[in-house]
C-alpha cells in the first residue's frame, strides 16, 4: 500500500525547475469516493457498532440505547452450553476437511491436467470442472436433494447395480450427512481451485525440464524434482490463507441441506446464529455467538496473512 517514491520526486522541489506550489485539495477525487464511503459507513460500520447488543438484553421496543446491560452473561451462557461445543466441533470438522481436501485434490488435478497434451481436450475438461463453482447452493441443493433422495438416482444406482438392500439416507443420517457436506463442497469447488495451480504450472521455466531431461530424468522424476518443488510456494500461500476460514463451514451449503433430524451432527455456528437470532428472536445471544466467531476469524486472518508474507513473500497490496 505504500507508494514507492519516484526518483524524480525530489526534482520538483529543486529551486528553479518549478515554483513550489501549495497542495491543492483534489475535491473531485474526494467526491468520487464519497458515495462508497457513505454506503460503507451505513452498511458496514453502523452494524459493527451494533455489536454492543451482545452485552445487553436487547429488546426491539427499547432499542440499543434503552436495553439493559448484562455484561458477559451471553458469553458465559455460550461457553457453558454443551450444544455450543458441539457446533464448534461440527464447524471445525467441516471447515478443516474441506480445506485439506480442497488443497490436495485441486493440486493433484492440476498436476494430472498438466499432462494432457491435447489442448482442445484440456480446455473441455476445464470448462466442465469450473462450472459447478458458479451455481448457487440453492440450485445445487435442489439438485442434490433430488439425486440423493431415497428414490433418487444415486440410491437406485447403489441398489440396482451394487446390490445394496436398503437406500442410504444421505441427508437424514448424521454420518452420511457429514460426508455429503464435505464431498459435495469438494465436488463444487475443486475445479475452480485448480486455476491458481495451473497458473503457477504455466510459470515454471521450461529450461528446468530440459536440464532434467538431459540428466536422464523421466516424466515421473521431473514431476517429483521440478514440478512439485516449483509449486510449493503457491501451495504454502493457499494453505496459510485458508487458515482464516477454519470457522467458515459454508453457511449457504449447510443451511440448504440440513434438517432438524441431524442438527447434532450438522449444525454449524452460522446456522445456529441464524436460528437463535432471526427465528427465536434471541438477538443478543445470537450476536454474542457471531461476535465470538468474528473475533477468532479476524485473529486467524491476520495471522495467516503474516505467515503467508513470511513464508512465501505474499502480499495483497
Amino acid at each position, binding site marked *: 500500500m505504500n507508494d514507492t517514491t519516484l526518483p524524480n520526486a525530489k526534482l520538483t522541489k529543486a529551486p528553479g525547475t518549478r515554483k513550489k506550489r501549495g497542495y491543492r485539495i483534489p475535491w473531485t477525487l474526494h467526491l468520487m469516493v464519497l458515495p*462508497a464511503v457513505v*454506503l460503507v459507513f*451505513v452498511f458496514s460500520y453502523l*452494524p459493527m457498532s451494533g455489536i454492543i447488543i451482545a452485552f445487553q438484553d436487547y429488546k426491539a421496543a427499547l432499542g440499543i440505547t434503552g436495553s439493559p446491560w448484562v455484561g458477559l452473561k451471553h458469553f458465559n451462557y455460550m461457553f457453558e452450553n454443551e450444544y455450543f461445543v458441539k457446533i464448534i466441533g461440527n464447524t471445525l470438522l467441516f471447515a478443516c476437511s474441506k480445506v485439506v481436501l480442497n488443497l490436495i485434490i485441486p493440486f493433484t488435478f492440476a498436476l494430472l491436467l498438466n499432462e494432457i497434451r491435447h489442448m482442445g481436450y484440456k480446455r473441455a475438461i476445464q470448462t466442465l470442472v469450473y462450472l459447478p463453482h*458458479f*451455481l448457487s447452493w440453492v440450485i445445487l441443493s435442489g439438485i442434490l436433494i433430488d439425486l440423493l433422495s431415497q428414490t433418487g438416482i444415486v440410491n437406485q444406482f447403489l441398489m440396482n447395480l451394487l446390490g445394496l438392500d436398503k437406500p442410504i439416507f444421505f441427508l437424514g443420517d448424521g454420518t452420511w450427512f457429514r460426508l455429503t457436506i464435505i464431498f459435495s463442497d469438494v465436488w463444487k469447488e475443486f475445479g475452480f481451485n485448480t*486455476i491458481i495451480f495451473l497458473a503457477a504450472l504455466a510459470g515454471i521455466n521450461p529450461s528446468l525440464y530440459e536440464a532434467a531431461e538431459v540428466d536422464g530424468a*523421466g516424466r515421473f522424476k521431473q514431476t517429483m524434482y521440478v514440478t512439485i518443488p516449483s509449486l510449493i510456494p503457491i501451495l504454502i500461500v493457499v494453505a496459510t490463507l485458508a487458515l482464516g476460514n477454519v470457522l467458515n463451514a459454508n453457511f449457504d451449503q449447510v443451511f440448504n441441506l440440513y434438517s432438524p433430524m441431524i442438527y447434532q451432527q450438522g449444525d454449524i455456528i452460522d446456522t445456529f446464529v441464524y436460528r437463535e437470532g*432471526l427465528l427465536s428472536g434471541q*438477538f443478543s445471544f445470537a450476536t454474542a455467538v457471531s461476535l465470538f466467531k468474528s473475533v477468532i476469524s479476524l485473529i486467524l486472518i491476520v495471522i495467516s496473512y503474516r505467515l503467508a508474507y513470511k513464508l512465501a513473500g505474499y502480499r495483497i497490496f
Partner: protein
Amino acid sequence: MYHKTLPYRIFSVFNYALLGAVSILCLLPMYHLLMVSLSSTAPANAGLVSFWPIGFTLEAYARTFDNVNFLTSLWVSVKRTVLGTGLALVVNAIAAYALSKDARVFRGRNVYLWYFVVTMLFSGGLIPGYILILKLGLMNKLMALILPGLVAVYNIILMLNFFRTVPRELEEAAFMDGAGHLRTFFSVYLPISLPSIATIALFTMVGHWNAYFDGLIYMKGAENLPLASFMQTVIVQGNMTSFDPDMIANMSQRTIRASQIFIGALPILLVYPFLQRFFVKGIVIGAVKE
C-alpha cells in the same frame, strides 16, 4: 522424449480417461435434472428417468411459466440484478479511480483504502445488519437487496490495480486538454478498462442472481421474493404457505421442480462461456501488482 515411452503412454491413457470421467461427473447432475424436467410426470415420479427423457414433453416448462408466483419472482430477480449491478459498477469504479491516484496527488487515499479494507476483515454480523435494515425502514423494499452489498471492496481493489496500469501519459494528455478527473475517468479510463469492468459486471450479476438469503430475511410475502429465495423456500425448505393453493399441487411434481431449478440456473449457464473467458484473466489482474 518422455511421452514416447511405454509407461508414460499407459499412464496417459488412464489419465485421459480419469480426467474425462471426473469432468463428466461435474456435469451429470445438471444433465440429469434437465432430463427429468423434459420427461412425463409418471416416469419421472417413479424414478425411471436417468440419462434421457422418457415420454418427452415440455409441459413442466409450460406449467412453470403459468405460475404467477414464479414469474413475479423472476421479475424481482431481473430488477435486482440489473439495478444492483449498474449501481455497484458506477459507485465502485469511480471510487477505484480516485483510489488509484498516488497518495501525493490524493492525500488521504491510504486512509480511505484502510477504511474500506477493514470491512473485509471484520463485520458486524447477521443480527446487527438485520436490525439496521429494520430501523432504516428498508424491509420489503428492493433497496434492501441492493444497498448493503453495493460497495464490493474486493472489486474496488481489482479495479484500482487495473487503473494503475493505465499509462500516465494518457491521463496527462487529458488534463492538458482541460479535462477534470470526472471527465478523464469517463473518457479515458472507462473505455480502456472495459474488458476488466465487464468481467466484474458479470461476476456481480452472477452474485445478484444467486443471492437468496437477503431475500429470505428481508422480503416478507410472495410478491417481493427474488427467484433464488423463492426456490429456496419452495424447493429446498418445501414451505408453500404463502403461495397460491393450486401451486402446491404443482410443486409436488418432480418434473416441475426440476424445470424451475433449471430455469433458475439458465442465466448462469448462459453467461458462463463469457465468464470463463474472462475470469482467469480477472484473477490475474488482481494477483499481479506493480
